């Protein structure tokens, strides 16, 4: 068997406070194979976002990674020098944020923001990058991409902004995309379109997707496997069908029971 694309082992992240440290992520281990989707579910404060940011070594202070290994393509990201990490961040592993309005730069044309992802990683000249931006907007199904590439974020709807975010994430042909609540801020019909787009791109580019969400409905639609986080630890992990049909952990059952209208329609 080939080793998994992402292998997180015993990851521990501590937030230091005046009264000692708190482990926001406590001995978390999981694996993700190329082209597969792992859903990381949990409520606010469960540590799911901190886990994801730790993979990219983007833990906000006063948090610090206190232990563990993050093997990506066989290399431990936590042991890489920062300049090598920068080659991976945004290129081999990219990130889609929840709030497209705050994650995009309001005073930069969307084309420049996509092009920036390419030029920063030295993958293209500005002209090439701009042409590639149009291609990418087209790939995420933004109509009239050649014109839209000149738009500022405020000229786009919420769903279109999220498509731009996805285009930026895809710019450098990543192997792994971390999506942090990618559809939480969107209306349900727009959410359906964005999920459809992610499914399509995942298949086309053989992307591995680490999908962070609190919505089990999104998990059921997208994920191959699910890891449920509670208070910094993974309490249950397994294939999506097994977790949804016969959750073993009490917390998973409570979380599923809280979803209104579960199992109907």
């Amino acid at each position: 068997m080939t080793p998994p694309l992402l292998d997180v082992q015993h990851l521990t992240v501590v937030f230091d406070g005046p009264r000692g440290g708190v482990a926001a992520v406590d001995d978390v281990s999981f694996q993700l194979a190329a082209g597969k989707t792992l859903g990381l579910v949990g409520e606010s404060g469960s540590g799911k976002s901190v886990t994801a940011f730790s993979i990219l070594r983007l833990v906000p202070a006063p948090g610090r990674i206190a232990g563990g290994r993050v093997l990506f393509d066989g290399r431990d990201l936590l042991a890489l020098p920062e300049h090598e990490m920068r080659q991976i961040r945004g290129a081999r592993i990219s990130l889609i944020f929840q709030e497209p309005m705050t994650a995009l730069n309001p005073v930069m044309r969307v084309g420049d923001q996509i092009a920036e992802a390419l030029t920063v990683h030295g993958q293209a000249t500005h002209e090439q990058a701009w042409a590639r931006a149009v291609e990418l907007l087209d790939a995420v199904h933004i109509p009239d991409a050649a014109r839209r590439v000149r738009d500022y974020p405020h000229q786009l709807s919420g769903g279109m902004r999220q498509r731009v975010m996805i285009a930026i994430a895809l710019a450098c042909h990543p192997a792994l995309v971390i999506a942090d609540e990618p559809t939480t801020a969107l209306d349900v019909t727009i959410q359906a379109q964005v999920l459809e787009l992610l499914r399509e791109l995942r298949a086309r580019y053989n992307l591995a997707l680490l999908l962070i969400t609190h919505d089990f409905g999104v998990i059921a639609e997208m994920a191959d496997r699910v890891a449920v986080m509670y208070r910094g630890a993974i309490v249950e992990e397994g294939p999506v069908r097994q977790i949804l049909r016969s959750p073993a952990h009490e917390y998973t059952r409570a979380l599923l029971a809280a979803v209104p209208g579960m199992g109907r329609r």
Partner: protein
Amino acid sequence: MSAPLLEVRHLAKHFVRRHGLWQPPSVVKAVDDVTFTIHEGEMFGLVGESGSGKSTTGRCILRLVEPTAGEVLFRGENVLAFPRARMRQARRDMQIVFQDPYSSLNPRMRAGDIVEEPLVIHRLGTNAERRARVAELFELVGLDPGHLPRYPHEFSGGQRQRIGIARALALHPALIVADEPVSALDVSIQAQVVRLMLDLRERLRLTYLFIAHDLRLVEHICGRVAVMYLGRIVEMGETQALFAHPRHPYTRALLSAVPVLDPDAPRQRLALDPGSFDRAAPLRQVGAAHWAAV
């Protein structure tokens, strides 16, 4: 059925957008000829996506936004015709709970003072009476009266929404307009707050206009529901009938977009073709308690 508590008739709110000195202004019909009735003790759901006009409708009912046209009858009286003083009085019976418990509570006021403020504004009771009432309200919504002196940031999201509910209940209202009251909360906290709202309905004989974009939640808790699209109600009826047999293309598209918890469920996304229906079609009866603009 019990008597109608609230009757909204042909409600309209138009916003005029000016584009510059030389361009003619354009009109956005945020709420466009909206009519519905809510009976005493009901939890009536108003669903729609961003920009559908559902929140503006809720605000027009309380006159937090002045409607352009129409009538809002509360216990048979048109509140839109009320002069200022009478309107102030009427607001005691109609209260609102806002979506975002992080921004709708004044961060510099203590929780107890936030809940007491409506009583102060309406000059009700002595200091001691008001304080006793606030403690009672805290207990009613499941908060510890020992936390009265705390500031909003010391509470969790769910607790903050309980403070918002306690504030809305301070004046013994009959109608609560709940504008996306749980959208900003985690799903398990949502369940707790919704349970509280249902429990309060029984205990205090409340009536709710529950504004939401989460169809799963509305299906779960509302007896009747109206679906808004671009300022108009396109479908309305008893929740079970409407969810089981949606008639309007928009309702169908909306329901088909809701993620289902079963990974093996067949997924059939219906794309909405705005050209496939008449936007101006009036509601007509399509079932025993079911109307659609088709």
